[in-house]
């Protein structure tokens, strides 16, 4: 199988199949990021498509010194943040009731486990929805992509100290929110393998 750098080079030469290969390689992380930032499967899908179209248009600007996954995720994050800012001026969107397909669903034993899993998803998304877009982005990059301060600073075009500050503020808001919550979330299976799929 061709590696991602080769796919990128071939896509630059106009090879659509290679570009489709890049999309397949990064669709999991990109979709997951869009979903965590935007909160609804429909918007996440649209944003993921738009992200890849932007990636295609900017292929020739990619700097090989940068991690390809970071470069693509940065494009996705910037697009989603812009979208959130525009949305804020239109109308507040509630947390989506319809949750996206879960990768673990096939493995789940019964309806109780699925219900618990969906409940957990909803609660996490509800927590995230209380964060301003800048804070939400660093939380998602930190927890779902294990991005370091330095990586986040590069992706978001800011300083490490700004990232530290945003993470600190975001955690403060979320911990306060969690402290107010009457119900605690039950522990469940980790599905972050999907989010990180293709990032190694």
């Amino acid at each position, binding site marked *: 199988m061709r590696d991602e750098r080769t796919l990128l080079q071939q896509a630059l030469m*106009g090879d659509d199949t290679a570009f489709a290969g890049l999309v397949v390689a990064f669709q999991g992380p990109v979709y997951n990021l869009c979903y965590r930032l935007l909160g609804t499967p429909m918007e996440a899908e649209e944003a993921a498509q738009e992200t890849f179209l932007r990636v295609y248009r900017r292929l020739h600007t990619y700097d090989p010194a940068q991690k390809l996954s970071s470069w693509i995720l940065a494009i996705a994050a910037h697009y989603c943040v812009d979208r959130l800012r525009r949305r804020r001026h239109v109308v507040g969107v509630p947390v989506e009731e319809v949750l996206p397909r879960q990768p673990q669903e096939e493995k789940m034993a019964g309806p109780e486990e699925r219900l618990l899993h969906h409940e*957990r998803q909803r609660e996490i998304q509800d927590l995230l929805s209380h964060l301003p877009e800048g804070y939400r982005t660093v939380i998602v990059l930190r927890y779902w992509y294990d991005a370091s301060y330095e990586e986040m600073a590069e992706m978001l075009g800011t300083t490490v100290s700004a990232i530290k500050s945003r*993470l600190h503020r975001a955690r403060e808001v979320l911990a306060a929110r969690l402290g107010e919550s009457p119900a605690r979330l039950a522990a469940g299976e980790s*599905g972050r393998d*999907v989010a990180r799929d293709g990032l190694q």
Partner: protein
Amino acid sequence: MHAMGCNEAREWMSLRLDGRLEPAEEEQLSEHLRRCPSCALEWSHWQELDGLLRTAPGVAPPEGLSALVLERLRQQRARQIAGSLVVIGLQVTGLGVLMLGAVAYCLHGVAPVLSQVPYLIPAARFAATHLVTVAGVLGEAIGVLMRAAVSRRAALLAPAYALLAAGVMAAWLRVVVRRRPAAGGPAGA
């Protein structure tokens, strides 16, 4: 070792969760948490949040995302090509009409040109009538300008004008063609 305040402790909690504290700082924070019940309670919330997010599930992308992206890419390319062709077509038509009008007026005057209108192909009559009329008016305006500049050399300058216009058009086309990526490659960002 200085006594840590609650604000500083809260800042360090975040760094501790990311493994960014030195061992001495870890110890300092632990000492503060042992002595400050309110920070200890907050730290328990931070830990709970951290655990929750660290085990948060990922979501799977919808089926066929790559096919949808490629389809949108093709649609965008088709729109770009169609748009470029329309613009080029309009420019070429406009230039042709201008050249025709200028040359025709300078050589024969506008009346003979207009007199040919009824004999044009019926399907194109409406458009042609208007184009030739506009060309005649523009040609007349150009002729007036040229006569004002060099009164008796208007007829000689008309072809020069046409050549100049064609040159500008060719340069413009060259720019457009250069900006289009070869072999369907990516366009500029």
